[in-house]
């Protein structure tokens, strides 16, 4: 898996400024300030898409894909079980509010904690199996989580999903915000997404970020350099779980219900598609992919029942011809000129 990162875009140090186009220089600027650039785009998003509910979905699934991409794009581990982490984030927050009457600001860490714990168990088991088994084991364990939540109907509502997660007013130090207002809700959720993006960017820029990319490129060599590959993978898995869990908690607050489908295999598949279509191993890619997939679904459902056929075909074409994804291909194309 080849990575596309800043080095692909920046020309060698000392190269004459004139040899770069304006486009390339602006891309460099965006790449250097990647968190700010994504947040700036997300602030404008509600006015760029047809309606706000879609913007909220892009925000939430974009964050989900960012968390997934940390593992898939940067560490090189293809998990097919991330719905379990997303879903346990949702259920964790939902159960905290519905059954324990916790306030929303305590429910969010509760969801993230549950998702991280589930991630710790799945990650520990999945990392024991090497290489290609990883995708199969994560898928199987996620299915196990699905059944566990399905059967625990007393807490999770079983087949009907968990209902009644009502958060109508958000009180920030005496400043009351109407959470039912779509735009207000979007910006409240954006605060959490922005914090998570900053965190992920910090992780990627840290020595730890370099180690996970090293593992992706050559696992044996990373081990030979003295890095504990298994422990590093597990930490990456848990960080990924926490971020995906956060996306899940935000979705629970947004929908005020948790559908059981959040834990389904197809939800895991969804995030795989978003990451690959957007561009794995890139910082913007997951949001581009989430927006792309959700927009296809949005428009395809207007004229056909069989939108999955369309999404599947697009995905197959990308795997065959554009494995870098949309954003990755743009970066590659700019870097080559």
């Amino acid at each position, binding site marked *: *898996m080849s990575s596309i990162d800043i080095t692909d875009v920046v020309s060698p140090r000392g190269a004459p400024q004139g040899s770069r186009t304006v486009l390339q220089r602006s891309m460099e600027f965006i790449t250097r300030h990647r968190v700010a650039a994504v947040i700036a785009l997300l602030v404008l998003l509600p006015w760029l898409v047809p309606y706000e509910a879609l913007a909220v979905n892009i925000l939430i699934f974009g964050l989900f894909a960012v968390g997934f991409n940390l593992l898939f794009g940067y560490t090189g581990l*293809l998990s*097919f079980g991330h719905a379990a982490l997303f879903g346990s984030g949702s259920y964790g927050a939902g159960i905290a509010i519905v059954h324990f009457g916790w306030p929303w600001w305590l429910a969010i860490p509760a969801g993230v904690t549950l998702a991280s714990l589930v991630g710790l168990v799945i990650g520990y*088991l999945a990392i*024991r*199996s*090497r*290489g*290609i*088994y990883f*995708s*199969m*084991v994560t*898928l*199987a*364990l996620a*299915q*196990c989580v699905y*059944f*566990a939540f399905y*059967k625990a109907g007393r807490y999770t509502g079983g087949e009907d999903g968990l209902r009644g997660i009502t958060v109508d007013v958000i009180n920030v130090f005496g400043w009351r915000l109407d959470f039912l207002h779509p735009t207000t809700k979007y910006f409240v959720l954006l605060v959490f997404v922005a914090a998570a993006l900053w965190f992920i960017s910090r992780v990627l820029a840290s020595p730890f970020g370099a180690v996970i990319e090293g593992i992706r490129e050559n696992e044996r060599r990373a081990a030979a350099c003295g890095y504990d590959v298994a422990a590093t993978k597990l930490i990456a898995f848990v960080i990924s779980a926490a971020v995906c869990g956060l996306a899940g908690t935000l979705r629970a607050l947004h929908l005020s219900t948790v559908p059981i489908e959040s834990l389904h*295999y*197809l939800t895991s*598949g969804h995030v*795989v*598609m978003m990451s*690959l279509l957007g561009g794995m191993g890139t910082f913007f890619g997951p949001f581009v992919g989430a927006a792309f997939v959700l927009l296809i679904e949005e428009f395809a459902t207007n004229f056909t*029942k*069989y939108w*999955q*056929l369309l*999404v*599947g*075909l697009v*995905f*197959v074409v990308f*795997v*065959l011809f554009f*494995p870098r994804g949309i954003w990755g291909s743009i970066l590659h194309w700019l870097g080559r000129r």
Partner: protein
Amino acid sequence: MSEINVILMQMVTGVSLGSLYVLLAIGLSLIFGMLTVVNFAHGAYFMVGAYAGVYTYTLTGNFWVSLVATPLVAGALGLLAARLLIRPLYGRGIDYPLLLTFGLSYVMIDTIRALFGIEGLPTSTPAALRGAVNIGIGHFPLYRLFLVAVTAAIVVVLWLFIEKTRYGLIIRAGVRNPEIVRVLGVDISRIWLLVFGLGCAIAGLSGALIAPIRAVTPEMGISVLVESFVVTVVGGMGSLPGAVTAGLLVGIVYSMTSLYAPDLAELSIFVLMAIVLLVRPQGFFGRAGLMA
């Protein structure tokens, strides 16, 4: 019926359920052992096989004809996918064929929905195989015994094919070292295509075999895919004896748990997989470090 007979009957039920897993895991293992491709569309081929079986059965009125036609249809579809979609990905990393077959399964499921509707098809057991027979410990459905017999026959034929024929020799050599096989003048990529087709044909046949006793819906392949992954992890990827042992074991564990704790039946096979991963990560018959 005495307690011991109940347990024995449940064991037999487990074996008949396990025989389905055996068939699916064999196809999956065969494809992986040869091409190092994890076929995420395996469940979709199983589902297409079930539809093809029911369709040809209602069309011809002959169950046996449908059992011959189905593997041909599924195998042809498998060859097509291998030639057009998977071949261009040779040498591009192990994740790409996996992702591709995952996308392919979306396409196949929705195509079946478009052709046959989202409701699923009604099915019936062929007249000759209805009813139950006394197997000494109680009456057992004849069709389920038939399933076990067919699975055993397929396993034996496949084993003979791989161990005793020229083609089997090439396949075994190709698993060991494709480079050398190519140097010896064998067009290995053609063998890869055939093996992929064969794996899909077996998946399709198991779909047609299970159709009379399960709901035939476009989504029927999804849970089956997960279950066959569990079997493969438990048995060890790329191993025929592993697929057989693990398939039967998973079937028996499932049916024994549903006897004593019905609520935990679905979870039990995952617990089994977790234990195997903790104790023997490469599976019963897997070689350590094979997938490293």
